[in-house]
């Protein structure tokens, strides 16, 4: 047997956007624990699941996004473990990439390819939903009046990022 190899965790994780050049107003969310929940559940890790459609619940560092009836997405610190529960609990931490879209042009930037009405009245702070951005499906959560958290499947991340870059060009990006 060869010598013990270094544990992989010590090696760098590589996300699909690690080498993408920055877009003003768009930053990469840090790695996190993502858990897909399905089924008739009330709590995850002791946190009550939001029952109002299209709303996220925030508890300390953990956000739980209502995605559909009996369906939630947990966004928690990367170090958190997956907690089993009723229904289906699946770790999808690496399935997606998070982007923060921030600033007074955030809505305009998103509306370059997202058909949602992002006016504060129509999509208030705390609102979350799956929707589309160009040809990609995304999950959008408004964390603040001028801060959106966008989740996208990792193989679509490059596309979404490039499209944001293209849309941001006229605001002085590039």
């Amino acid at each position, binding site marked *: *047997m*060869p010598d013990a*190899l*270094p*544990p*992989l*965790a*010590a*090696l*760098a*994780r*590589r*996300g*699909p956007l690690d*080498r993408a050049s920055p877009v003003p107003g768009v930053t990469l969310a840090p*790695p996190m624990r993502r858990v*897909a929940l*399905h*089924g008739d559940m009330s709590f995850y890790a002791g946190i009550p699941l939001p029952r109002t459609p299209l709303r996220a619940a925030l508890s300390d560092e953990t956000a739980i996004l209502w995605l559909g009836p*009996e369906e939630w997405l947990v966004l928690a610190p990367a170090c958190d473990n997956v907690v089993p529960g009723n*229904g*289906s*609990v*699946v*770790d*999808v*931490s*690496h*399935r*997606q990439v998070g982007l923060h879209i921030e600033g007074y042009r955030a809505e*305009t930037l998103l*509306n*370059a*390819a*997202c*058909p*949602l*009405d992002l*006016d504060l009245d*129509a999509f208030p702070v705390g609102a979350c939903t799956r929707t589309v951005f*160009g*040809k*990609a499906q995304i999950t959008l959560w408004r964390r603040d009046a001028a801060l959106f958290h966008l989740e996208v*499947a*990792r*193989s*679509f991340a*490059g*596309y979404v990022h*490039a*499209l944001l870059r*293209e*849309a941001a*060009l*006229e605001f*002085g*990006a*590039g």
Partner: protein
Amino acid sequence: MKFTFDGRPYEARRGDTLAAALIRNGVHLMGRSFKYHRPRGVLAAGAEEPNALVEIDRGGARRTPNLRATVVEVFDGMVARSQNRTPSLRFDVGAVNDLLAPFLPPGFYYKTFMWPIGAWAKLYEPLIRRAAGLGRAPDLPDTDRYTQRFAHCDVLVIGAGPAGLAAAAEAAAAGMRVMLCDEQAEFGGSLLSDPAAAAGLHETLAALFANPRATMLCRTTAFGIYGDNLVGLAERVTDHLPDPDPALPRERLWQVRAKRIVVAAGAIERPLVFPGNDRPGIMLGDAARIFATRYGANPGRNAVVVTACDTGADVARDLAASGVRIARVIDLREGFRVTGTSGRLRVSFIGIERGGAREKIPCDLVAMCGGWTPSIHLYSQARGKPRFDAALGAFVPDTEVSNLICVGACAGDMPGAYRAGIAPVSSEGRAFVDFQNDVTAKDLELATREGFRSIEHVKRYTTTGMATDQGKTSNINALGIVAGALGATIPEIGLTTFRTPYTPVTFGTLAGHSRGDLFDPVRTTPMHQLAVAAGAVFEDVGTWKRARYFPRAAEDMHMAVARECRMVRDSVGMFDATTLGEIEVVGADAAEFMNRVYINAWTRLAPGRCRYGVMLGENGFVMDDGVVGRLAPDRFHVTTTTGGAARVLAAMEDYRQTEWPELRVWLTSVSEQWAVIAVQGPRAREALLPLVDGLDISAAVMPHMSVVEGTFLGIEMRLFRVSFSGEMGFEVNVPADYGHAAWEAISARVGACQGGLYGTEAMHVLRAEKGFIIVGQETDGTATPDDVGLAWAIGKAKPDFIGKRSLTRSGMSGPRRQLVGLRTDDPATVLEEGAQITATTDDNRPLGHVTSAYGGATVGHSIALAMIESGRDRLGATLQVRMPGRAIAVRVTAPVFYDPEGARLDA
């Protein structure tokens, strides 16, 4: 500002349209008509212009044909050219068509050019094509950018004339989210040619611009109203700038969802139909007024105003105030008739007649005031049904359209002066109705005589209203003439359909951002960069990029693939299988759900074991396949094909929600969660062993078709013992962010075992040697499991599964195409995929086709798979693969060419 037109330099004022600038410079000849190449000047001052179409050349790829001189804004240094003329606008050889006009009536091409057969396409058609066509298409890939944006508002106001401005101001004052768009460069509409209105206009606009809830878009055409109050706007962002910032798009598409739409699009003036009404210098009254008052460009020195309503007097007054001499105002309501005009490149006389008295009046400008047609285009697109207003001589909005109102002139709301009815037509001589397409009143009458009585037929036979202006100035006159010819009323004849776009919209604008890699997402795996570094040649599979092979110096694909195959058979190869779809099926009823979805039986599959699953459509044909691992009694890890991933998940979810809602089972796509690295070959275990943190992966503990959860250098891992190559093999699943590192770690180990990377092409060869099918290659949506030799996979005891009933339909019996192998006499002959197979060389009935064919890297001869009618009954028979000019004899074999007992899988 300086610009050139057909190479000659001119000066323009800020705010000029090209038409205004040319007129101020005394240029009235601006274009040639479509069919007869007749000399033409402007007819109108806005987007409805049919005649003055020009090409603007901004250098390189940025050349645009067919732009309206009345809309193009001049910038310093602009290069404009006329079109549809050879060699010049003044002397156009195409004008010979005008001499031939008597022989070119509507539809002349339907009546001749039929002899000899084939001559149409070779001889006549090219001639006709060259003569037609207006401008020259751009010939270099466009270098400009285009963007798009979705927007929402409470009120979208289309048109910023007095009516639109009032509506916008009111809505803004009420605190609503307002958008106001106007296709012109400035807001104001008809107010812009009314100096008295300037102050009030300024004030209204200032308030709107100051309102943060108001979005003001000039140079923005509302081109279409679509379902549920979606309005398409095309904004021209930089075409008017001499030197645009490259970061700015040329144009922007807005898709606006408005709670309410206010259409305030105004009205369009109608020309009068009289002989010779098309010469340069003959234009709409309002256009003449706009050039004179708004642009300070008098369109003539000596004008005759011909009118059918009271606005003629206003036009005469305003022209006179601008210094134009008014030779005469001829009010058609007083019994006058225009008998003709003269002047080759500009009008010089107009002839009139009343009560037999004829007169020729010298002039260089004829202003036509034929009444006004409300712009009901958008209202009609929104499915409003207009009604005919005889006093106006036009259609006006009638039925209600939910959440849409028309206001101002486009609603027919015009003072009495504008009311004209439809003016009488003199159809003697050549009186033009559709100016661009050269349709005359006589042409329309002829069409009705030839039996084209529906207005839609008349339109298509004569092409009236089909030009780039879509008949904005001509349709209503055409309607009047056809009604007259048929002795019917205008409402009986009816309108042709108003379609999008209101004015033409650039393809680039509609395509928006979409270009190159933004046309469709380019999906890559976490190991993509490593494949690039290893020199991979990629192929597109769906939206994914997959490494096809890894050529070394001087290797072509064939050599590289042969080497990669041998490597897998002899030692070990690694392959990126990340793109396969993966679904976690979880819940107490997971096994039951799987039983219903797949043809296989799942109940007895033990946790830790895998099975090859086949999924059908309800039509009984193979839809997808993949290995399924049971992780726990209530948890399956399902894999699908790369291309089928989304489709399979959607189909499963459909059944789960709508067919079997009682089942406690849920589906989670984990395709992107896992990086999947296949390690295949006799030394696969040896390569992996040091990496799996002491996991026992011996054959005894981890036999073929098993799965365990463990760690890979400390990282969570799902390890499958599966093989698509025919060799002992594993598939390492690690969380995607670790794919890159895991690949490097495995790569080092594989290298140490004399192995290396292989791509999809080698994967295809290896599996074909084993007779494994690829869904979409062996199957094509018409193959049952039995056809491709998978009947064994059907869970015989199961009462039902998707597609089961279809397998016993009567049409499924009889001789079916079945999967077999083919061998050629010459082991080096590789058959062609898709080639057809017959029984003998003189029988052309196809028995089937070659689905896969390869050199057969390890079996020592070429191999092929084929779907052949009753193929399994033909084992050993000789058939013919039919190639151009020859046939290749092949022997039908079993589809498995390598290790038929499967001994190597169990190693």
